[in-house]
Protein backbone atom coordinates (compact mmCIF):
# COMPACT_ATOMS: atom_id res chain seq x y z
CA UNK A 1 0.00 0.00 0.00
CA UNK A 2 1.29 3.40 -0.91
CA UNK A 3 1.60 5.60 2.15
CA UNK A 4 0.81 9.19 1.37
CA UNK A 5 -1.13 11.92 3.12
CA UNK A 6 -2.09 13.75 -0.05
CA UNK A 7 -5.42 13.20 -1.80
CA UNK A 8 -5.18 13.85 -5.53
CA UNK A 9 -8.23 14.45 -7.71
CA UNK A 10 -7.94 14.75 -11.44
CA UNK A 11 -10.27 17.34 -12.92
CA UNK A 12 -11.72 16.92 -16.42
CA UNK A 13 -9.24 19.60 -17.52
CA UNK A 14 -6.41 17.21 -16.75
CA UNK A 15 -4.96 19.00 -13.76
CA UNK A 16 -4.58 17.39 -10.37
CA UNK A 17 -6.14 19.04 -7.36
CA UNK A 18 -4.47 18.16 -4.11
CA UNK A 19 -5.45 18.29 -0.45
CA UNK A 20 -3.72 17.11 2.70
CA UNK A 21 -5.61 14.36 4.53
CA UNK A 22 -6.24 14.70 8.25
CA UNK A 23 -5.22 11.67 10.29
CA UNK A 24 -6.51 10.01 13.41
CA UNK A 25 -5.07 12.41 16.00
CA UNK A 26 -6.48 15.77 14.82
CA UNK A 27 -9.80 14.08 14.09
CA UNK A 28 -9.98 12.53 17.55
CA UNK A 29 -9.11 15.83 19.20
CA UNK A 30 -11.68 17.67 17.08
CA UNK A 31 -14.27 15.08 18.10
CA UNK A 32 -13.29 15.55 21.75
CA UNK A 33 -13.92 19.29 21.47
CA UNK A 34 -17.31 18.69 19.86
CA UNK A 35 -18.13 16.22 22.60
CA UNK A 36 -17.18 18.73 25.29
CA UNK A 37 -19.36 21.38 23.65
CA UNK A 38 -22.31 19.00 23.48
CA UNK A 39 -21.87 17.80 27.04
CA UNK A 40 -21.55 21.43 28.15
CA UNK A 41 -24.81 22.36 26.46
CA UNK A 42 -26.57 19.34 27.94
CA UNK A 43 -25.36 20.16 31.45
CA UNK A 44 -26.41 23.79 31.22
CA UNK A 45 -29.75 22.79 29.72
CA UNK A 46 -30.26 20.02 32.24
CA UNK A 47 -29.94 22.57 35.02
CA UNK A 48 -32.50 24.88 33.40
CA UNK A 49 -34.91 22.04 32.68
CA UNK A 50 -35.01 21.10 36.36
CA UNK A 51 -37.35 24.05 36.78
CA UNK A 52 -39.65 22.96 33.98
CA UNK A 53 -40.58 19.54 35.30
CA UNK A 54 -41.85 16.97 32.84
CA UNK A 55 -42.04 19.39 29.91
CA UNK A 56 -38.41 20.17 30.57
CA UNK A 57 -37.55 16.48 30.55
CA UNK A 58 -39.22 16.07 27.16
CA UNK A 59 -37.45 19.08 25.69
CA UNK A 60 -34.18 17.88 27.18
CA UNK A 61 -34.46 14.53 25.41
CA UNK A 62 -35.32 16.21 22.11
CA UNK A 63 -32.30 18.50 22.37
CA UNK A 64 -30.18 15.49 23.31
CA UNK A 65 -31.38 13.68 20.19
CA UNK A 66 -30.69 16.68 17.95
CA UNK A 67 -27.20 17.18 19.40
CA UNK A 68 -26.34 13.50 19.10
CA UNK A 69 -27.43 12.94 15.51
CA UNK A 70 -27.88 16.31 13.80
CA UNK A 71 -25.19 18.55 15.30
CA UNK A 72 -22.45 17.32 12.95
CA UNK A 73 -24.79 17.14 9.95
CA UNK A 74 -25.99 20.72 10.30
CA UNK A 75 -22.46 22.07 10.74
CA UNK A 76 -21.06 20.05 7.85
CA UNK A 77 -23.77 21.07 5.42
CA UNK A 78 -24.18 24.72 6.39
CA UNK A 79 -20.73 25.62 7.77
CA UNK A 80 -18.46 24.41 5.00
CA UNK A 81 -17.81 20.91 6.32
CA UNK A 82 -16.61 22.06 9.72
CA UNK A 83 -18.02 21.36 13.14
CA UNK A 84 -16.70 23.66 15.85
CA UNK A 85 -14.08 21.08 16.84
CA UNK A 86 -12.92 20.65 13.25
CA UNK A 87 -12.68 24.42 12.93
CA UNK A 88 -10.26 24.54 15.84
CA UNK A 89 -8.01 22.02 14.10
CA UNK A 90 -8.49 23.61 10.70
CA UNK A 91 -9.87 20.46 9.09
CA UNK A 92 -13.06 19.91 7.13
CA UNK A 93 -15.21 17.19 5.61
CA UNK A 94 -15.37 17.10 1.81
CA UNK A 95 -16.49 14.65 -0.84
CA UNK A 96 -13.78 12.44 -2.30
CA UNK A 97 -13.58 14.82 -5.27
CA UNK A 98 -12.95 17.70 -2.82
CA UNK A 99 -16.34 19.35 -3.43
CA UNK A 100 -18.38 20.44 -0.38
CA UNK A 101 -20.63 17.82 1.22
CA UNK A 102 -24.39 17.96 0.75
CA UNK A 103 -27.06 16.62 3.07
CA UNK A 104 -27.04 13.02 1.77
CA UNK A 105 -23.35 12.18 2.27
CA UNK A 106 -23.19 14.13 5.53
CA UNK A 107 -26.18 12.28 6.96
CA UNK A 108 -24.75 8.96 5.76
CA UNK A 109 -21.40 9.46 7.43
CA UNK A 110 -22.97 10.69 10.64
CA UNK A 111 -25.65 7.99 10.93
CA UNK A 112 -22.90 5.43 10.48
CA UNK A 113 -21.28 6.71 13.65
CA UNK A 114 -23.56 4.06 15.12
CA UNK A 115 -21.28 1.47 13.49
CA UNK A 116 -17.96 3.30 13.92
CA UNK A 117 -18.54 3.71 17.64
CA UNK A 118 -18.92 -0.09 17.97
CA UNK A 119 -18.15 -1.67 20.39
CA UNK A 120 -16.61 1.12 22.48
CA UNK A 121 -14.87 4.47 22.01
CA UNK A 122 -15.02 4.45 18.20
CA UNK A 123 -12.76 1.38 18.07
CA UNK A 124 -14.10 0.31 14.68
CA UNK A 125 -13.79 3.81 13.26
CA UNK A 126 -10.22 4.21 14.52
CA UNK A 127 -9.12 0.89 13.03
CA UNK A 128 -10.77 1.82 9.76
CA UNK A 129 -9.03 5.23 9.70
CA UNK A 130 -5.67 3.61 10.36
CA UNK A 131 -6.13 0.92 7.73
CA UNK A 132 -7.56 2.80 4.78
CA UNK A 133 -5.52 4.66 2.23
CA UNK A 134 -7.35 7.93 2.73
CA UNK A 135 -7.96 7.73 6.48
CA UNK A 136 -11.68 7.01 6.23
CA UNK A 137 -13.87 5.57 8.93
CA UNK A 138 -16.78 3.34 7.88
CA UNK A 139 -19.09 6.34 7.61
CA UNK A 140 -16.64 8.07 5.29
CA UNK A 141 -16.28 4.95 3.15
CA UNK A 142 -20.04 4.64 2.72
CA UNK A 143 -20.63 8.33 2.12
CA UNK A 144 -17.58 8.81 -0.11
CA UNK A 145 -16.17 11.59 2.06
CA UNK A 146 -12.71 12.44 3.35
CA UNK A 147 -11.42 14.80 6.03
CA UNK A 148 -8.75 17.22 4.81
CA UNK A 149 -6.85 20.22 6.07
CA UNK A 150 -8.10 23.61 4.97
CA UNK A 151 -5.47 25.32 2.86
CA UNK A 152 -3.41 27.58 5.04
CA UNK A 153 -0.07 27.88 3.29
CA UNK A 154 -0.58 31.48 2.30
CA UNK A 155 1.67 32.97 -0.23
CA UNK A 156 3.72 35.63 1.53
CA UNK A 157 5.81 37.74 -0.79
CA UNK A 158 6.66 40.35 1.78
CA UNK A 159 9.59 38.22 2.94
CA UNK A 160 11.48 38.65 -0.32
CA UNK A 161 10.63 42.31 -0.72
CA UNK A 162 12.81 43.11 2.28
CA UNK A 163 15.99 41.64 0.78
CA UNK A 164 18.17 42.40 -2.22
CA UNK A 165 18.57 39.73 -4.89
CA UNK A 166 21.98 38.07 -4.63
CA UNK A 167 23.71 36.31 -7.51
CA UNK A 168 24.75 32.85 -6.30
CA UNK A 169 28.44 31.98 -6.59
CA UNK A 170 27.96 28.24 -7.17
CA UNK A 171 25.98 26.22 -9.62
CA UNK A 172 23.04 24.53 -7.92
CA UNK A 173 21.02 21.42 -8.66
CA UNK A 174 17.30 21.79 -9.22
CA UNK A 175 16.48 20.49 -5.74
CA UNK A 176 18.91 22.91 -4.19
CA UNK A 177 17.34 25.77 -6.10
CA UNK A 178 13.90 24.77 -4.89
CA UNK A 179 15.16 24.62 -1.30
CA UNK A 180 16.50 28.18 -1.58
CA UNK A 181 13.26 29.43 -3.15
CA UNK A 182 11.10 27.78 -0.53
CA UNK A 183 13.22 29.25 2.22
CA UNK A 184 12.87 32.67 0.63
CA UNK A 185 9.10 32.50 0.45
CA UNK A 186 8.17 30.54 3.54
CA UNK A 187 8.72 32.46 6.68
CA UNK A 188 5.99 30.44 8.29
CA UNK A 189 5.96 30.53 12.07
CA UNK A 190 9.70 30.12 12.47
CA UNK A 191 11.47 32.45 14.82
CA UNK A 192 14.32 34.61 13.51
CA UNK A 193 16.83 32.53 15.48
CA UNK A 194 15.59 29.32 13.89
CA UNK A 195 15.76 30.88 10.44
CA UNK A 196 19.34 31.93 11.06
CA UNK A 197 20.16 28.45 12.29
CA UNK A 198 18.81 26.84 9.15
CA UNK A 199 20.52 29.34 6.88
CA UNK A 200 23.86 28.77 8.66
CA UNK A 201 23.89 25.27 7.18
CA UNK A 202 24.97 26.71 3.84
CA UNK A 203 27.54 29.06 5.44
CA UNK A 204 30.49 27.11 3.95
CA UNK A 205 29.26 27.98 0.48
CA UNK A 206 28.60 31.67 1.10
CA UNK A 207 31.00 34.48 0.24
CA UNK A 208 33.28 35.09 3.24
CA UNK A 209 32.02 38.60 3.96
CA UNK A 210 28.35 37.56 4.35
CA UNK A 211 26.98 38.91 7.62
CA UNK A 212 23.34 37.79 7.73
CA UNK A 213 22.99 34.18 6.60
CA UNK A 214 19.20 34.10 6.30
CA UNK A 215 19.14 37.32 4.27
CA UNK A 216 21.76 35.81 1.98
CA UNK A 217 19.78 32.61 1.39
CA UNK A 218 16.63 34.60 0.89
CA UNK A 219 18.44 36.88 -1.53
CA UNK A 220 19.65 33.94 -3.59
CA UNK A 221 16.09 32.58 -3.55
CA UNK A 222 14.85 35.90 -4.84
CA UNK A 223 17.45 35.83 -7.62
CA UNK A 224 16.40 32.30 -8.56
CA UNK A 225 12.76 33.45 -8.69
CA UNK A 226 13.81 35.83 -11.42
CA UNK A 227 14.46 39.12 -9.60
CA UNK A 228 17.58 40.99 -10.67
Amino acid at each position, binding site marked *: MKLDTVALVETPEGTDLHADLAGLVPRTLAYAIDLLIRVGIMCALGFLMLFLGEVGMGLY*LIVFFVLEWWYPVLFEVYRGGQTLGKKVFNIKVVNEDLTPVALGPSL*TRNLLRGADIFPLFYATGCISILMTERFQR*LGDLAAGTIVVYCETE*LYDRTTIEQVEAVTPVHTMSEDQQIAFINFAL*NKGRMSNDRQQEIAEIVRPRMPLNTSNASDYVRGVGKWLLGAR
Partner: protein
Amino acid sequence: MKQLEFERRHSAFWDSMESSLQLSSALEPELLSNFPKDYRRLCQHLAMAKSRRYAAGLITRLNGLVQQGYEALYGQSLNNRASIVEFLIYGFPASLRANATFLWIAAIVFVLPYAAIMIACMVNDQMIYSVIDAGNVRMVESMYDPDLGKLGRERQSDSDIQMFGFYIYNNIGIAFKCFATGIFLGVGSLFVLAFNGLHIGAVSGHLTALGYTETFYPFVIGHGSFELTAIVFSGAAGLMLGFSILAPGAHTRTRALQNAAKDAIKIMYGVFVMLLIAAFIEAFWSSSSTLPNAVKYVVGACLWVFVYYYCFFFAPNRVATYRSQDAA
Protein backbone atom coordinates in the same frame (compact mmCIF):
# COMPACT_ATOMS: atom_id res chain seq x y z
CA MET B 1 10.10 31.45 -17.40
CA LYS B 2 11.11 32.52 -13.92
CA GLN B 3 8.45 32.46 -11.29
CA LEU B 4 8.36 36.20 -10.65
CA GLU B 5 7.86 36.91 -14.33
CA PHE B 6 5.09 34.30 -14.46
CA GLU B 7 3.40 35.95 -11.51
CA ARG B 8 3.85 39.44 -12.95
CA ARG B 9 2.07 38.42 -16.13
CA HIS B 10 -0.85 36.61 -14.59
CA SER B 11 -1.48 37.94 -11.10
CA ALA B 12 -4.10 40.43 -12.32
CA PHE B 13 -6.00 37.52 -13.88
CA TRP B 14 -5.74 35.47 -10.69
CA ASP B 15 -6.96 38.37 -8.60
CA SER B 16 -9.97 38.86 -10.85
CA MET B 17 -10.72 35.13 -10.72
CA GLU B 18 -10.42 35.20 -6.96
CA SER B 19 -12.87 38.05 -6.56
CA SER B 20 -15.38 36.60 -9.03
CA LEU B 21 -15.23 33.20 -7.32
CA GLN B 22 -15.89 34.75 -3.95
CA LEU B 23 -19.28 35.96 -5.13
CA SER B 24 -19.79 32.91 -7.32
CA SER B 25 -23.40 32.59 -6.24
CA ALA B 26 -24.05 35.95 -7.86
CA LEU B 27 -22.02 35.38 -11.02
CA GLU B 28 -23.09 37.81 -13.70
CA PRO B 29 -24.40 36.13 -16.85
CA GLU B 30 -21.81 37.76 -19.11
CA LEU B 31 -19.13 36.81 -16.63
CA LEU B 32 -20.54 33.32 -16.53
CA SER B 33 -20.18 32.79 -20.26
CA ASN B 34 -16.44 33.45 -19.96
CA PHE B 35 -16.06 31.42 -16.84
CA PRO B 36 -15.34 27.96 -18.32
CA LYS B 37 -12.66 29.47 -20.53
CA ASP B 38 -11.08 31.36 -17.65
CA TYR B 39 -11.23 28.28 -15.50
CA ARG B 40 -9.39 26.20 -18.09
CA ARG B 41 -6.74 28.89 -18.26
CA LEU B 42 -6.40 28.70 -14.49
CA CYS B 43 -5.98 24.93 -14.73
CA GLN B 44 -3.27 25.44 -17.30
CA HIS B 45 -1.46 27.86 -15.01
CA LEU B 46 -1.61 25.35 -12.17
CA ALA B 47 -0.23 22.60 -14.39
CA MET B 48 2.59 24.89 -15.58
CA ALA B 49 3.41 26.01 -12.06
CA LYS B 50 3.65 22.39 -10.97
CA SER B 51 5.74 21.16 -13.87
CA ARG B 52 8.10 24.12 -13.54
CA ARG B 53 8.30 23.40 -9.83
CA TYR B 54 7.45 26.90 -8.75
CA ALA B 55 7.32 27.61 -5.03
CA ALA B 56 4.81 25.71 -2.89
CA GLY B 57 3.04 28.90 -1.84
CA LEU B 58 2.17 29.82 -5.41
CA ILE B 59 1.03 26.30 -6.23
CA THR B 60 -1.14 26.27 -3.12
CA ARG B 61 -2.77 29.52 -4.14
CA LEU B 62 -3.48 28.28 -7.67
CA ASN B 63 -4.66 24.93 -6.34
CA GLY B 64 -7.10 26.75 -4.08
CA LEU B 65 -8.39 28.86 -6.96
CA VAL B 66 -8.80 25.85 -9.25
CA GLN B 67 -10.59 24.01 -6.48
CA GLN B 68 -13.06 26.85 -6.00
CA GLY B 69 -13.55 27.05 -9.74
CA TYR B 70 -14.07 23.30 -9.90
CA GLU B 71 -16.75 23.55 -7.22
CA ALA B 72 -18.42 26.46 -9.02
CA LEU B 73 -18.41 24.61 -12.34
CA TYR B 74 -19.13 21.02 -11.32
CA GLY B 75 -20.36 21.11 -7.73
CA GLN B 76 -23.97 20.22 -7.11
CA SER B 77 -26.07 23.14 -5.99
CA LEU B 78 -28.10 22.41 -2.90
CA ASN B 79 -31.55 21.23 -3.88
CA ASN B 80 -34.21 23.84 -3.69
CA ARG B 81 -37.23 23.47 -1.46
CA ALA B 82 -39.59 22.25 -4.17
CA SER B 83 -37.44 19.24 -4.97
CA ILE B 84 -37.17 18.32 -1.28
CA VAL B 85 -40.95 18.18 -1.03
CA GLU B 86 -41.06 16.23 -4.28
CA PHE B 87 -38.53 13.80 -2.88
CA LEU B 88 -40.52 13.24 0.29
CA ILE B 89 -43.65 12.50 -1.73
CA TYR B 90 -42.17 10.40 -4.56
CA GLY B 91 -38.52 9.66 -3.88
CA PHE B 92 -39.00 7.80 -0.63
CA PRO B 93 -41.55 5.25 -1.94
CA ALA B 94 -39.46 4.98 -5.12
CA SER B 95 -36.43 3.83 -3.10
CA LEU B 96 -38.58 1.45 -1.08
CA ARG B 97 -40.15 -0.19 -4.11
CA ALA B 98 -36.79 -0.60 -5.84
CA ASN B 99 -35.46 -2.54 -2.85
CA ALA B 100 -38.44 -4.76 -2.12
CA THR B 101 -36.29 -7.85 -1.51
CA PHE B 102 -34.53 -6.22 1.43
CA LEU B 103 -37.86 -5.06 2.82
CA TRP B 104 -39.20 -8.62 2.69
CA ILE B 105 -36.14 -10.03 4.44
CA ALA B 106 -36.26 -7.34 7.13
CA ALA B 107 -40.00 -7.84 7.60
CA ILE B 108 -39.61 -11.61 7.99
CA VAL B 109 -36.75 -11.24 10.47
CA PHE B 110 -38.93 -8.91 12.52
CA VAL B 111 -42.32 -10.58 12.21
CA LEU B 112 -41.33 -14.25 12.65
CA PRO B 113 -39.78 -13.81 16.13
CA TYR B 114 -42.65 -11.48 16.94
CA ALA B 115 -45.32 -14.03 16.04
CA ALA B 116 -43.47 -16.99 17.55
CA ILE B 117 -42.87 -15.42 20.95
CA MET B 118 -46.34 -13.89 20.99
CA ILE B 119 -47.94 -17.30 20.60
CA ALA B 120 -45.52 -18.79 23.11
CA CYS B 121 -46.37 -16.10 25.66
CA MET B 122 -50.09 -16.64 25.16
CA VAL B 123 -49.72 -20.37 25.74
CA ASN B 124 -47.30 -20.17 28.63
CA ASP B 125 -47.52 -17.21 31.03
CA GLN B 126 -43.94 -17.74 32.23
CA MET B 127 -42.49 -17.46 28.74
CA ILE B 128 -42.17 -13.64 28.88
CA TYR B 129 -39.53 -13.94 31.62
CA SER B 130 -37.17 -15.55 29.12
CA VAL B 131 -37.13 -12.29 27.16
CA ILE B 132 -37.84 -9.51 29.67
CA ASP B 133 -36.77 -9.34 33.31
CA ALA B 134 -39.30 -9.48 36.12
CA GLY B 135 -39.11 -5.78 37.06
CA ASN B 136 -39.93 -4.64 33.57
CA VAL B 137 -42.70 -7.23 33.22
CA ARG B 138 -44.35 -5.83 36.34
CA MET B 139 -44.02 -2.30 34.98
CA VAL B 140 -45.57 -3.23 31.64
CA GLU B 141 -48.40 -5.07 33.39
CA SER B 142 -49.21 -2.10 35.60
CA MET B 143 -49.17 0.28 32.64
CA TYR B 144 -52.02 -1.53 30.94
CA ASP B 145 -53.88 -2.98 33.92
CA PRO B 146 -57.55 -2.01 33.38
CA ASP B 147 -58.31 -2.66 37.08
CA LEU B 148 -56.10 0.20 38.18
CA GLY B 149 -59.01 2.45 37.27
CA LYS B 150 -57.09 4.62 34.93
CA LEU B 151 -55.00 3.82 31.92
CA GLY B 152 -51.40 3.58 33.04
CA ARG B 153 -50.37 5.84 30.25
CA GLU B 154 -53.01 8.38 31.12
CA ARG B 155 -51.17 11.58 31.64
CA GLN B 156 -51.42 15.30 31.81
CA SER B 157 -50.26 17.17 28.71
CA ASP B 158 -47.02 17.95 30.53
CA SER B 159 -46.03 14.33 30.60
CA ASP B 160 -47.24 13.96 26.99
CA ILE B 161 -44.40 16.28 26.02
CA GLN B 162 -42.02 14.32 28.20
CA MET B 163 -43.01 11.10 26.45
CA PHE B 164 -42.79 12.79 23.04
CA GLY B 165 -39.17 13.65 23.80
CA PHE B 166 -38.54 10.12 25.01
CA TYR B 167 -40.02 8.51 21.89
CA ILE B 168 -37.96 10.74 19.62
CA TYR B 169 -34.74 10.14 21.50
CA ASN B 170 -35.27 6.42 22.01
CA ASN B 171 -37.14 5.17 18.94
CA ILE B 172 -35.33 7.21 16.31
CA GLY B 173 -32.05 6.34 17.99
CA ILE B 174 -32.91 2.63 17.71
CA ALA B 175 -33.79 2.99 14.03
CA PHE B 176 -30.56 4.87 13.28
CA LYS B 177 -28.48 2.23 15.04
CA CYS B 178 -30.41 -0.54 13.32
CA PHE B 179 -29.41 1.06 10.01
CA ALA B 180 -25.78 1.80 10.92
CA THR B 181 -24.89 -1.63 12.24
CA GLY B 182 -26.08 -3.15 8.97
CA ILE B 183 -22.67 -2.26 7.57
CA PHE B 184 -21.31 -5.25 9.53
CA LEU B 185 -22.47 -7.56 6.73
CA GLY B 186 -26.07 -7.01 7.83
CA VAL B 187 -25.59 -8.75 11.17
CA GLY B 188 -26.33 -5.67 13.28
CA SER B 189 -29.59 -4.91 11.49
CA LEU B 190 -30.74 -8.52 11.70
CA PHE B 191 -29.98 -8.57 15.43
CA VAL B 192 -31.80 -5.30 16.18
CA LEU B 193 -34.81 -6.39 14.11
CA ALA B 194 -35.07 -9.81 15.74
CA PHE B 195 -34.44 -8.42 19.22
CA ASN B 196 -37.15 -5.79 18.89
CA GLY B 197 -39.48 -8.35 17.33
CA LEU B 198 -38.98 -10.64 20.32
CA HIS B 199 -39.39 -7.84 22.85
CA ILE B 200 -42.54 -6.33 21.39
CA GLY B 201 -43.99 -9.75 20.56
CA ALA B 202 -43.48 -10.96 24.12
CA VAL B 203 -45.25 -7.91 25.56
CA SER B 204 -48.16 -8.28 23.12
CA GLY B 205 -48.59 -11.99 23.83
CA HIS B 206 -48.30 -11.60 27.59
CA LEU B 207 -50.80 -8.75 27.82
CA THR B 208 -53.21 -10.55 25.50
CA ALA B 209 -53.00 -13.66 27.70
CA LEU B 210 -53.70 -11.50 30.77
CA GLY B 211 -56.77 -10.11 29.01
CA TYR B 212 -55.57 -6.50 28.92
CA THR B 213 -56.67 -6.19 25.30
CA GLU B 214 -59.00 -3.26 25.90
CA THR B 215 -56.14 -1.09 27.13
CA PHE B 216 -53.20 -2.38 25.13
CA TYR B 217 -54.42 -2.63 21.54
CA PRO B 218 -56.20 0.75 21.33
CA PHE B 219 -52.97 2.28 22.60
CA VAL B 220 -50.59 0.69 20.09
CA ILE B 221 -52.71 0.55 16.95
CA GLY B 222 -52.41 4.28 16.21
CA HIS B 223 -48.67 4.73 16.08
CA GLY B 224 -47.76 1.08 15.38
CA SER B 225 -48.28 1.54 11.66
CA PHE B 226 -45.61 4.21 11.45
CA GLU B 227 -43.31 2.95 14.19
CA LEU B 228 -43.05 -0.78 13.44
CA THR B 229 -42.96 -0.22 9.69
CA ALA B 230 -40.21 2.37 10.03
CA ILE B 231 -38.10 0.05 12.18
CA VAL B 232 -38.39 -2.64 9.50
CA PHE B 233 -37.46 -0.08 6.82
CA SER B 234 -34.38 1.01 8.75
CA GLY B 235 -33.34 -2.63 9.06
CA ALA B 236 -33.81 -3.10 5.32
CA ALA B 237 -31.66 -0.02 4.66
CA GLY B 238 -28.97 -1.50 6.90
CA LEU B 239 -29.17 -4.84 5.06
CA MET B 240 -28.59 -2.98 1.79
CA LEU B 241 -25.26 -1.74 3.15
CA GLY B 242 -24.25 -5.17 4.39
CA PHE B 243 -25.26 -6.94 1.19
CA SER B 244 -23.32 -4.50 -0.98
CA ILE B 245 -20.15 -5.50 0.86
CA LEU B 246 -20.97 -9.23 0.73
CA ALA B 247 -21.82 -9.21 -2.96
CA PRO B 248 -20.41 -6.08 -4.61
CA GLY B 249 -21.05 -7.34 -8.15
CA ALA B 250 -19.11 -5.53 -10.84
CA HIS B 251 -17.84 -2.80 -8.54
CA THR B 252 -15.16 -2.60 -5.88
CA ARG B 253 -16.56 -3.14 -2.38
CA THR B 254 -16.14 0.53 -1.50
CA ARG B 255 -17.91 1.69 -4.64
CA ALA B 256 -20.71 -0.84 -4.16
CA LEU B 257 -21.11 0.35 -0.57
CA GLN B 258 -21.33 3.97 -1.69
CA ASN B 259 -23.97 3.16 -4.29
CA ALA B 260 -25.99 1.21 -1.75
CA ALA B 261 -25.63 3.99 0.84
CA LYS B 262 -26.96 6.57 -1.64
CA ASP B 263 -30.16 4.58 -1.95
CA ALA B 264 -30.35 3.52 1.69
CA ILE B 265 -30.04 7.07 2.99
CA LYS B 266 -33.16 8.01 1.00
CA ILE B 267 -35.04 5.34 2.91
CA MET B 268 -33.60 6.75 6.14
CA TYR B 269 -34.96 10.24 5.39
CA GLY B 270 -38.39 8.67 5.20
CA VAL B 271 -37.81 6.57 8.31
CA PHE B 272 -36.92 9.73 10.21
CA VAL B 273 -40.12 11.48 9.15
CA MET B 274 -42.23 8.38 9.88
CA LEU B 275 -40.81 8.08 13.38
CA LEU B 276 -41.42 11.77 14.07
CA ILE B 277 -45.06 11.21 13.11
CA ALA B 278 -45.15 8.03 15.21
CA ALA B 279 -43.75 9.84 18.26
CA PHE B 280 -46.33 12.57 17.85
CA ILE B 281 -49.23 10.12 17.57
CA GLU B 282 -47.95 7.99 20.44
CA ALA B 283 -47.48 10.94 22.78
CA PHE B 284 -50.59 12.97 22.02
CA TRP B 285 -53.16 10.60 20.51
CA SER B 286 -52.57 7.01 21.59
CA SER B 287 -52.27 7.98 25.25
CA SER B 288 -55.51 9.90 25.34
CA SER B 289 -58.03 8.27 27.69
CA THR B 290 -60.95 10.47 26.66
CA LEU B 291 -61.18 9.03 23.15
CA PRO B 292 -63.42 5.96 22.87
CA ASN B 293 -61.64 2.79 21.82
CA ALA B 294 -63.78 2.46 18.70
CA VAL B 295 -62.42 5.77 17.39
CA LYS B 296 -58.86 4.66 18.10
CA TYR B 297 -59.38 1.37 16.27
CA VAL B 298 -60.91 3.03 13.21
CA VAL B 299 -58.29 5.77 13.00
CA GLY B 300 -55.51 3.29 13.70
CA ALA B 301 -56.71 0.97 10.96
CA CYS B 302 -56.90 3.88 8.53
CA LEU B 303 -53.32 4.83 9.37
CA TRP B 304 -52.11 1.27 8.65
CA VAL B 305 -53.88 1.33 5.29
CA PHE B 306 -52.53 4.79 4.56
CA VAL B 307 -48.90 3.89 5.37
CA TYR B 308 -48.88 0.77 3.18
CA TYR B 309 -50.87 2.36 0.39
CA TYR B 310 -48.50 5.33 0.28
CA CYS B 311 -45.34 3.25 0.46
CA PHE B 312 -46.22 0.58 -2.07
CA PHE B 313 -49.23 1.48 -4.19
CA PHE B 314 -49.52 5.26 -4.36
CA ALA B 315 -48.98 6.86 -7.81
CA PRO B 316 -47.01 3.95 -9.32
CA ASN B 317 -46.22 5.68 -12.62
CA ARG B 318 -45.15 8.97 -11.09
CA VAL B 319 -42.97 7.18 -8.54
CA ALA B 320 -41.35 5.01 -11.21
CA THR B 321 -40.55 8.00 -13.40
CA TYR B 322 -39.16 9.87 -10.41
CA ARG B 323 -36.71 7.05 -9.86
CA SER B 324 -35.55 6.87 -13.46
CA GLN B 325 -35.08 10.66 -13.53
CA ASP B 326 -33.20 10.46 -10.28
CA ALA B 327 -30.87 7.81 -11.66
CA ALA B 328 -30.20 9.85 -14.78
